[in-house]
C-alpha cells in the first residue's frame, strides 16, 4: 500500500465529518493500519495515538465530550494538587486548623507538602535533562487563549503597548507545519523568534509598568470580559486582527500552576535555564501589593517552558499514583508523548497538549507500570524481571544459537534489555525514529494479556535488534557485547523493523496454532525454580533421558507393573499432523488428563483386563504387539521411539518442527500416532 493510499485511509478513519454515517472506528482494522506506521501529516499521529491507547473512544460522536471532561479533570488536578498549604491558610483565615509547618503527623498538609518536595526534587532533576539534544523542551509553551495553563493574553497585551498585531498572531498561531520530518527546522526557528520577542517585550514593559500598575492590579486576572477596562490599547489590537477568534469565554488561569517550580528553585540557584528568574519579572513588585487580600504571584504572567509542563505532569501523576510514584525513566516515556501532542496542528489540541499528554501517559503507564515497581522486579508473573525472561525465551525460540552463545557468556538480559524495555526504546534511537517505532508498538497491544500488559511487538523488536547484530555478538567477548548492546550501533531502525515484522509473523502464526512456546504455564514454572535467569539449557532431545521418568511410567505404576518414581511435573505435548501440514501442540493439562485416561484404557487392553468396545475388533492385533514385549526396557524404548515421533517436550524449538515424521504406521509409534488421532478427533479405532 503506498503512502498516499494509506494517508487517505487514515484521513477517512479519523475525520469527524462523516460522523453520522460511520461513527465508530473499527479498532482492529485501525490498529493494523497503524502498525505499518502513521503518516507524518500534521494532526494524524496525535489523534491516532489517542485512539490507540484508549483515550479517545472508537465512537467519534463522543470525542468532544470525552476531551472536555478529561481536560477539565486535569485542570482541577493542577488546581488542587499543586496548592501550597501556606496559601490555603491565607485564603481561609477564619478556618482554624491546627496545622503548622513543623507538623509531622501524617494528615498534616504541611507534612505532605514536605514529603512531596522530595519527589519533586527528583522529578525536577530528571526532567531538566530530558532529551537534552532537542531544543524543543527548553522552549516556551506557546501562548493560547484556550488553555487555563497559559498566562492571560491581557498580560501580554499590556506588555504589548506599541507592538503591531502581527506579534499576537505569531504568538497564537504557531507553526502548523510541524511534522517529524522538519521538527528540527520549524520548531527552532519559530520558537526562537517567539523567544526573542518575549524578551523584547519585557524590556518594554519595565518602562510601562510603573504608571500602569495601579490599573492593572485591580483588573489583572479577571478573564476576557474585563477587556473593556480602561485600557484602550488591547481593544485596538483585537479589532485589528481579522483572523483572531472572537473573545473566548473566560478561561480563568490556574494560579497554582507554577507553584512547584518555586519549591525547587533552590536546587538550581546557580545555573538555571531560565535566565531571568521570578524576581526580575516585570509584573512583580507593584502587582503584589493588592489591597483586597488576594495573593498575586509574581509569575502568573510567566510563560511555562515545555520541560516545566512535563514536570507538572509527572508530579501530578506521582501524587495520584502513590503506589508507583515517580521512577526515573518515566520522563523519557513522557517525552515523545508530550512532544507529539504539543506539535499538534489542531489549535485546540495544541492548547491542551499538557492535559492530553497526561492522560495518554497514564494510559500507557497502566500497561507498563509493573516495570517500574521495584518490589515486582523478581516477581514470577509480572514486573521487569518477568518481561526480560520472556524476551530471553523468545530469543531462544527465534535464534537458539545466539541465545546459547549469550547464555554461555552469561550475558543475561538485564545487562542490555532493561533500558530497552522500561523506557520503550527512547534511549536507543533518535526521537523521530522512536516515534515511528512507537506507532508500531502501541498498535500491537494485545488485549488478551492483562498481566503482561501487551506490547508484544516491543519484545519482538528487541529480539530483532539482537539478531541484527548477531555476527558481532557471536564473535565478540562479553565486554564487547555489553558495550555493543548498550550503544546500539544500527541507528536506522528500518532493517531491524523489517526483521521484527517477520518475527511477529512467526509469533502470530505460532499463536494461531496454539503453540505458545514462550508462555510458561504452572507446570513449567515449577521446573524453573527460584533464581533469575537460571535457564536450563535443555533442548527437546535431552528431555527424555532414561533417567527421566515420564508420565507413562506413572501409569505403569498404577497398573501395578513397574513401581517407578514419578514426577508429575514433567509434561509433554502430543504433536500431530493434520491434513494441513500444521503442527499442533495440545495444551499440556488437557493432554495429561485425556492421555492418562486413554493410556489406562490402552493398558487395560494390553493386560487384557478390560475389553473396550471400541477396540474389540483390533484387540487381537494389539495384544500380539504388546504382550510379549512388556519389559521395562521395552517400555522405555517404546517411549523413546515415540518420543522422537509422537511425544516431545513442551519447550519445542523450531528445529523440532521438522523432525516429525508423518504417517508412521508400523510399530508402536504408529499405534501411538493413531491413538493421538483418537484423542483429537474422537473417532473409533479400526485397524
Amino acid at each position, binding site marked *: 500500500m503506498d503512502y498516499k493510499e494509506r494517508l487517505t485511509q487514515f484521513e477517512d478513519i479519523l475525520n469527524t465529518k462523516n460522523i453520522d454515517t460511520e461513527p465508530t472506528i473499527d479498532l482492529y482494522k485501525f490498529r493494523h493500519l497503524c502498525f505499518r506506521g502513521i503518516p507524518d501529516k500534521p494532526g494524524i499521529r496525535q489523534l491516532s495515538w489517542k485512539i490507540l491507547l484508549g483515550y479517545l473512544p472508537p465512537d467519534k460522536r463522543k470525542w468532544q465530550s470525552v476531551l472536555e471532561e478529561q481536560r477539565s479533570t486535569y485542570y482541577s488536578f493542577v488546581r488542587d494538587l499543586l496548592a*501550597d498549604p*501556606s*496559601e490555603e*491558610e*491565607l485564603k481561609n*483565615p477564619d478556618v482554624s486548623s*491546627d496545622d*503548622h*509547618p*513543623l507538623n*509531622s503527623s501524617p494528615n498534616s498538609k*504541611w507534612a505532605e507538602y*514536605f514529603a512531596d518536595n522530595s519527589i519533586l526534587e527528583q522529578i525536577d532533576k530528571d526532567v531538566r535533562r530530558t532529551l537534552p539534544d532537542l531544543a524543543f523542551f527548553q522552549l516556551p509553551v506557546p501562548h493560547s487563549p484556550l488553555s487555563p495553563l497559559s498566562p492571560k493574553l491581557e498580560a501580554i497585551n499590556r506588555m504589548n503597548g506599541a507592538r503591531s498585531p502581527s506579534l499576537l498572531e505569531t504568538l497564537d498561531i504557531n507553526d502548523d507545519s510541524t511534522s517529524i520530518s522538519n521538527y528540527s527546522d520549524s520548531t527552532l526557528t519559530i520558537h526562537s523568534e517567539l523567544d526573542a520577542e518575549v524578551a523584547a517585550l519585557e524590556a518594554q514593559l519595565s518602562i510601562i509598568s510603573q504608571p500602569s500598575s495601579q490599573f492593572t492590579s485591580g483588573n489583572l486576572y479577571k478573564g476576557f470580559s474585563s477587556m473593556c477596562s480602561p485600557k484602550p490599547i488591547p481593544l485596538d489590537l483585537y479589532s485589528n486582527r481579522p483572523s483572531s477568534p472572537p473573545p473566548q469565554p473566560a478561561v480563568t488561569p490556574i494560579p497554582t500552576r507554577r507553584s512547584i517550580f*518555586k519549591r525547587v528553585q*533552590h536546587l538550581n540557584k546557580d545555573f538555571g535555564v531560565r535566565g531571568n528568574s521570578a524576581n526580575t519579572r516585570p509584573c512583580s*513588585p507593584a502587582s*503584589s*501589593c493588592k489591597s483586597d*487580600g488576594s*495573593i*498575586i*504571584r509574581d509569575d502568573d504572567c510567566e510563560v511555562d517552558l515545555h520541560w516545566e509542563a512535563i514536570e507538572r505532569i509527572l508530579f501530578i501523576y506521582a501524587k495520584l499514583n502513590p503506589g508507583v510514584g515517580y521512577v526515573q525513566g518515566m520522563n523519557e516515556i513522557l517525552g515523545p508523548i508530550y512532544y507529539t501532542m504539543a506539535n499538534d496542528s489542531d489549535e485546540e489540541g495544541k492548547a491542551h497538549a499538557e492535559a492530553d499528554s497526561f492522560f495518554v501517559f497514564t494510559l500507557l503507564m497502566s500497561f507498563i507500570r509493573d516495570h517500574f515497581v521495584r518490589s515486582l522486579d523478581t516477581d514470577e508473573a509480572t514486573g521487569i524481571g518477568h518481561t526480560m525472561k520472556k524476551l530471553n525465551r523468545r530469543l531462544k525460540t527465534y535464534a537458539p544459537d545466539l541465545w546459547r552463545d549469550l547464555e554461555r557468556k552469561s550475558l543475561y538480559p538485564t545487562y542490555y534489555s532493561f533500558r530497552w524495555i522500561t523506557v520503550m526504546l527512547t534511549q536507543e534511537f533518535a526521537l523521530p525514529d522512536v516515534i515511528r517505532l512507537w506507532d508500531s508498538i502501541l498498535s500491537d497491544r494485545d488485549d488478551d494479556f492483562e498481566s503482561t500488559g501487551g506490547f508484544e511487538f516491543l519484545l519482538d523488536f528487541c529480539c530483532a535488534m539482537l539478531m541484527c547484530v548477531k555476527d558481532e555478538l557471536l564473535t565478540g567477548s562479553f565486554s564487547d557485547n555489553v558495550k555493543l548492546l548498550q550503544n546500539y550501533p544500527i541507528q536506522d531502525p528500518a532493517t531491524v523493523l523489517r526483521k521484527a515484522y517477520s518475527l511477529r509473523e512467526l509469533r502470530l502464526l505460532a499463536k494461531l496454532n496454539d503453540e505458545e512456546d514462550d508462555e510458561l504455564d504452572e507446570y513449567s514454572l515449577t521446573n524453573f525454580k527460584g533464581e533469575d535467569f537460571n535457564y536450563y539449557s535443555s533442548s527437546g532431545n535431552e528431555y527424555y533421558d532414561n533417567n527421566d521418568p515420564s508420565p507413562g511410567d506413572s501409569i505403569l505404576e498404577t497398573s501395578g507393573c513397574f513401581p517407578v518414581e514419578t514426577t508429575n511435573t514433567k509434561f509433554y505435548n502430543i504433536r500431530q499432523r493434520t491434513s494441513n501440514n500444521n503442527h499442533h501442540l495440545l495444551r499440556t493439562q488437557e493432554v495429561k488428563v485425556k492421555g492418562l485416561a486413554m493410556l489406562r484404557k490402552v493398558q487395560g487392553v494390553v493386560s487384557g483386563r478390560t475389553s473396550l468396545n471400541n477396540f474389540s475388533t483390533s484387540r487381537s492385533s494389539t495384544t500380539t504387539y504388546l504382550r510379549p514385549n512388556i519389559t521395562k526396557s521395552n517400555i522405555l524404548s517404546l517411549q523413546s521411539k515415540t518420543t522422537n515421533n509422537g511425544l516431545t517436550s513442551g519447550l519445542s524449538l523450531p528445529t523440532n518442527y521438522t523432525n516429525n515424521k508423518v504417517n508412521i504406521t508400523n510399530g508402536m509409534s504408529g499405534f501411538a500416532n493413531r491413538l493421538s488421532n483418537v484423542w483429537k478427533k474422537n473417532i473409533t479405532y479400526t485397524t
Partner: protein
Amino acid sequence: MVLVLVIGDFHIPYRVHDLPLKFKKLLVPGKIQQIICTGNVCDKETFDYLRTVAADVHVVKGDYDEFPSWPLSKIITHGPLRIGVLHGHQVIPVGDAESLSIVARQMDVDILLTGHTHRFEAIEYEGKFFVNPGSATGAYSGFSSEDIKPSFVLMDIQGVVVVTYVYQLVDGDVKVDKIEYRKNYDTNRVL
C-alpha cells in the same frame, strides 16, 4: 513561601543545659529555609546545632554571647519586606513598645525581631510588626518574676504577608498559635 525560624535566648550552658526535647523533635532539618537568632546563644555547640537545622543562619550578638564577631543588629530583606534583628539589651526600657518603635524607624524596617525579655510577644504597632520569640529554653531572666515558658516563632513569608506560628511549651505540651501580619503600602508616603 519562605519559612523563617526566629529563636533566641538559649543561655546554654550557663542557665539551662539544653533545648526542650519536644522542641528538638519539631526542629527537623529540611523544612526551614532560614534561621534568625535574636542572640544569647552563648555556646558554639548550640550554634552548630542551629546550623544543622537550616543552612542559612543569621545571628546577632546578645549580652552573654561568646562570639565577638557577630554584629549587634542586622537587616534581612525578603522581597518587599525588611526585617530587622537586634538583641534588645541596647533598648531601654527593656521591651518597651515605643522605644522599639524608635529603633524600627531608625533601621527603617517593617518587622523588628528582638529578644532579651524571655517573653513571647507579637505586636503590631504603628504599621510595624514587633516579634519577640521569647526564650527557646525557658532560661531565667531578671526582668520577669513569673515562670518563663519556652517558646519560638516560625514565620511563613509570602510576599507582603507574614503568617507567624508561635510554638510554646505549656505544661509539657507544645501549643501552636497563628498570627497574620500584612504590610501596608502607604501610597501617600513620600519616598
